């Protein structure tokens, strides 16, 4: 290194090194604040979950509100789920046909479609669609109730808001997700078969028999019912974000966004764990 180069580097480094020492406490402070917020959020979620669990298992039970929420989460999400399932079915059908043809394994098409839709795409798509529609809805609704003191009014009327608002919504998500997943799977399989039939005629009966040949309940039930866990995640996070909202309209918007973002993220992370768990427990 020449004398000039080293001087140049020194000239550049000098001010940077001064800034670096000044920046260190700021960076450390930001990391500490982030860690504090992280633990505060999880701590809050833990306390919230305990309150909801206590409220959910003790009478009086809010059956009417539960039925209303089952309709809200289940029936009203059904068209969207069926449509998303249909699109996924067509996409997998086209991709699978192309890939399998290249390897001369076209006969594997029905099984590939069935396994891809039921084990992988159906549950994840259902989880993500419900995160978006229901998570945002619950987050915004509860946040709006919170900032307009409606949740306080419920509490002041001697009604436990964890029981009435949170437990019913979370339970509805847990119960409805597997059913919506079945609908997404059925829709995906039908449109996948239909897309294939347009190119190369195949009877639906043949497609089903070939696709499910040798399949066991273990192959399909755990992936379908794992979505109950997604339901728990979506309901819990959306209710938590909604009921802890502060700060008017901006807070409501933030709660809705956070509900969707966090529940989608946790659904995907949970999927990693659940897939491994299912592979170990139901080989």
């Amino acid at each position, binding site marked *: 290194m020449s004398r000039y180069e080293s001087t140049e580097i020194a000239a550049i480094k000098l001010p940077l090194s001064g800034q670096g020492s000044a920046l260190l406490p700021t960076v450390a402070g930001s990391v500490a604040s982030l860690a504090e917020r992280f633990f505060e959020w999880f701590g809050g979620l833990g306390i919230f979950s305990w*309150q909801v669990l206590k*409220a959910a298992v*003790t009478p*009086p039970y809010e059956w009417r509100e539960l039925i209303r929420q089952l309709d809200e989460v289940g029936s009203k999400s059904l068209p969207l789920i069926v449509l998303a399932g249909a699109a996924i079915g067509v996409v997998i059908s086209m991709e699978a046909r192309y890939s399998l043809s290249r390897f001369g394994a076209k006969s594997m098409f029905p099984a590939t479609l069935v396994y891809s839709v039921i084990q992988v795409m159906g549950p994840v798509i259902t989880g993500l669609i419900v995160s978006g529609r229901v998570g945002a809805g619950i987050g915004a609704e509860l946040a709006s*109730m919170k900032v*307009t*003191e*409606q949740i*306080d*009014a419920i*509490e*002041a*009327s*001697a*009604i*436990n808001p*964890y029981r009435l608002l949170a437990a019913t919504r979370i339970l509805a998500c847990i119960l409805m997700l597997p059913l919506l997943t079945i609908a997404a799977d059925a829709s995906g399989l039908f449109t996948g078969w239909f897309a294939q039939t347009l190119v190369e005629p195949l009877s639906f009966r043949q497609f089903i028999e070939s696709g499910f040949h040798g399949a066991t309940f273990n192959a399909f039930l755990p992936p379908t019912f794992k979505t109950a866990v997604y339901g728990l995640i979506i309901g819990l996070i959306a209710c938590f974000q909604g009921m802890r909202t502060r700060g008017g309209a901006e807070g409501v918007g933030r709660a809705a966004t956070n509900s969707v973002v966090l529940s989608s993220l946790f659904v995907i992370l949970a999927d990693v764990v659940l897939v491994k768990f299912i592979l170990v427990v139901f080989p």
Partner: protein
Amino acid sequence: MATASDMATKQEDATEERSAPIVAVKELRKSFGNLRVLNGINLTVNRGETLAVLGRSGTGKSVLLRLIIGLETPDSGSVSIYEQDIARLALDRMGEVRKKMGFLFQHAALYDSLTVAENVAFPLEHHRREMSRSERNDRVAQLLFEVGMKGSNGKMPSDISGGMQKRVGLARALALQPEILLLDEPTAGLDPISSGEIDDLVLKLQREHQMASIVVTHDLHSAKTIANRIALLDQGNVVTEGRFEDLQESNIAFVKEFLKQS
């Protein structure tokens, strides 16, 4: 058979129960972060009595009401309802105490997805499950009639004025026939005629139901009309407490200034 002394003891107990304050606030302190809102408040309210809590904005009047109904937890001190300290009661046990209380929120806090009638019926549906639908409808109609909102059953909260919302909020607060009524700024934001109507309504309800009431307000005229006693708050402390006439005779500078500006 009950002896004369048993009967005398029972009578003494009953007298004591009548004379004991229904709401007793002792050395109540509450801060939010570094902001100290209440700084050792002492207040009592007896059966059939109305206490008006006056003070400038941000002096902790609404926080006081929220502490009394358990929506906030005090930093120290106690809030006793029927001699039971409610400060650290579990949510469900607190619910039993709250059934004896009615709360009118400053902005009414009506459930915006429910109609006027459904709002009033809400506490009845949850706490009077033995009531038949027709009994509940009759009770709702009676409550709406009492607050001058007859015929508004099917309207949504967004379709009625602020004054009407407060009337409906009051009907909802009265649904469970509370023994304690807490009113947070019942006349705030209303025109003088609507304010007067709300005051008359509160007075009428007081006469008919003999509740212990705490009214938080900025409105000195309203406080003078509906309250037996007035407590004036400043910087988290009760500056003075007494009848309106006592306030008028007070030599405390803040009291004089407050009365002058009001």
